[in-house]
C-alpha cells in the first residue's frame, strides 16, 4: 500500500471512519503476525499479540505523528509487546511459583512454547537471543531488510545495527550444528 494511501486512511479513521481500519488490519495483520510468531514461537501467543498490537495501535492512533512510517510504528508496538511477553516468560523461569504450573509442577507456558514452534537446532539458538536480537535476525535474515529501514524501526543507527548483527550471527554460528552432529562448543547437537 502506498504511503499516501495509508495516510489518507489514517486521517479518515482519526476523523471517525472506523470501518476504514479494517483495510489497515487486512494489510498489516499477516506481516505483524509473522513477526510475532517468530518472536514468541507460539501460534496462540502470536495471534493474541497481533490482536493486541492492532487494538493498541487504534487506541493510540492520535499519538502517531507520521515522523516514521506506519509500518515501523506498528512493528515498534509489536516489539514492545513481544519483549514484555518474553520478559514475563523469563520471570516465570526465575520465579516459577508466581506463574501457572500444571499438576506435576511444570511450567507449561514455557514448555508449550518451546515444543510447538521451533525444532532443533533453531530452537536452541533462538532461546539464546534477546528480543532485540530476534527482531534483528527476523528483519535482516528473513525479511532481508536494509539496515536503514531496520534503524527506523528499532530507533538505532544503521552502523550500530550492522555491528550488533555481526555479533548475533557469531552467536548463532556457535550453536549451529556441524556436519558431524557435534556443535562448535563441543557438545552433541542431537
Amino acid at each position: 500500500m502506498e504511503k499516501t494511501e495509508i495516510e489518507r486512511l489514517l486521517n479518515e479513521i482519526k476523523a471517525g471512519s472506523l470501518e476504514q481500519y479494517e483495510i489497515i488490519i487486512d494489510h498489516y495483520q499477516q506481516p505483524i503476525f509473522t513477526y510475532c510468531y517468530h518472536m514468541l514461537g507460539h501460534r496462540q501467543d502470536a495471534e493474541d499479540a497481533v490482536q493486541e498490537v492492532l487494538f493498541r495501535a487504534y487506541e493510540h492512533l492520535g499519538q502517531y505523528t507520521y515522523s516514521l512510517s506506519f509500518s515501523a510504528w506498528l512493528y515498534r508496538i509489536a516489539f514492545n509487546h513481544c519483549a514484555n511477553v518474553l520478559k514475563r516468560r523469563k520471570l516465570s523461569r526465575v520465579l516459577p511459583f508466581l506463574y501457572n504450573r500444571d499438576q506435576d509442577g511444570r511450567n507449561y507456558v514455557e514448555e508449550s512454547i518451546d515444543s510447538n514452534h521451533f525444532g532443533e537446532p533453531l530452537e536452541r539458538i533462538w532461546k539464546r537471543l534477546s528480543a532485540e536480537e530476534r527482531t534483528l535476525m527476523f528483519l535482516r535474515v528473513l525479511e532481508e531488510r536494509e539496515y536503514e529501514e531496520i534503524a527506523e524501526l528499532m530507533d538505532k543507527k544503521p552502523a550500530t545495527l550492522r555491528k550488533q548483527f555481526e555479533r548475533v550471527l557469531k552467536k548463532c554460528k556457535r550453536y549451529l550444528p556441524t556436519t558431524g552432529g557435534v556443535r562448535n562448543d563441543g557438545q552433541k547437537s542431537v
Partner: protein
Amino acid sequence: MDKNPFNRMRDMLRAKPVPKVDVKHKVMAAIRAKENKEEKIVKKKIGLLVTVGMLVGASSVWAGVEMIQLKNEKGEVIYEITQHTDQEQQQLFKQMPPEEQKKREELNKRYEYQDEVVNEIIDGLKPGTSVAIYFKPTKEEEERQKNITWSRYKQPYITMVSTPLTYKSWKEMEPVVGKMFTLPTELAGGFRYDEGDVHYEENYEYEVDLEALKAKAIKENKDYAFTEIPSSNKYDFTSVAYKSEKGKVRVEVRIADGGKAGTNAEAMEKIMIGNNEAVLTTHTSNFHWITWVKNGTKLKYSVRAGEDVVSKDELINIAKQINEIK
C-alpha cells in the same frame, strides 16, 4: 553444507511455515465494544417513569438518562434500553407537586391490588389456560378511559392472563420450540436444565361477554370477575431455569420486536456476545442480566443470575455458549 551462518539461519527460518491468521473481526469487535462503552447516549428529555415498565405519559421532566442501543450486523437498531435507577425514579417523584404525588401513590396501590388478584387467579389455573379478568373501574379510571384512543385490549377494564406450559427437560420442550431455537441441556459451570416454560401471547383478539362479567362481579359481590377464554397460539417467550448446587441461572428467548425497554439497573454497559451487540445490566440485588438479539434471527435472548451464583465473566461465557448453538 553451507557454512555461512546467515544463509543457514535464513534457510532454517524460511523452512518454518507461518500459519495464516485473520483477527480482523476480533480486533474490530474489541474496538467497537470499547467505543460503544464510551459513547453511551445521553438523552435529555424523558417521559416520567413511576414504576419500572409502567410509563405514565401525562407529565415529563428534564433529566439525564442513559440509553443503550443494540445494532445488528447491518447497523440497524434492534433494541433500545433506557436506565432509570430506583434512586432517579424517587427523585423524579419528589419533584412532582404534592397532589400529583398523591395521585401516583393511589394509582400504584390500585395496580398492587390488581396484581394480587391476578396472581391469586393464576395460582388456581391449570398450565396452558387463559382467562379474561374484568375489574370494575374506579371513577378516575372511567375518566382516563375517555382519553384512551388505542389499547392492545379491545375491551376496556379487561385484563388477559395465561399460564405457560411447563417442560421438565429440553427433550420435552424441543418439539415445541426446536424449530425456532435450541437451548443446551447444561450450561457452563454445571448448571443443568431444571424447568422451562413456554409462554404464548395473550389472546387480544378474543372478545369476551363484558356484560356477563359485570353481572358476575355484582352477583359475587366482588369488584372483579373472570372467565376462561381460548388461548392464543402466538409464541411469546420461553423461560428456562438451569440449576446447580450454587443456585439458578435463567435463560429467556423472546421474539425480538425491535422495541424499547426500561430498566432500574444500577449500571449498564454494552458488551459483545459473539458477533452480537449485547447489553449487560447490573442490579441492586447483586445480579447481572445480559440481553442480546442474535444476528440473522428475530430472537432476543437474555440470561441472568445472581453474583453469588455466577460471576459477571461466567455469565458472559454462558451467554456465548447459548449464542453459539445453531
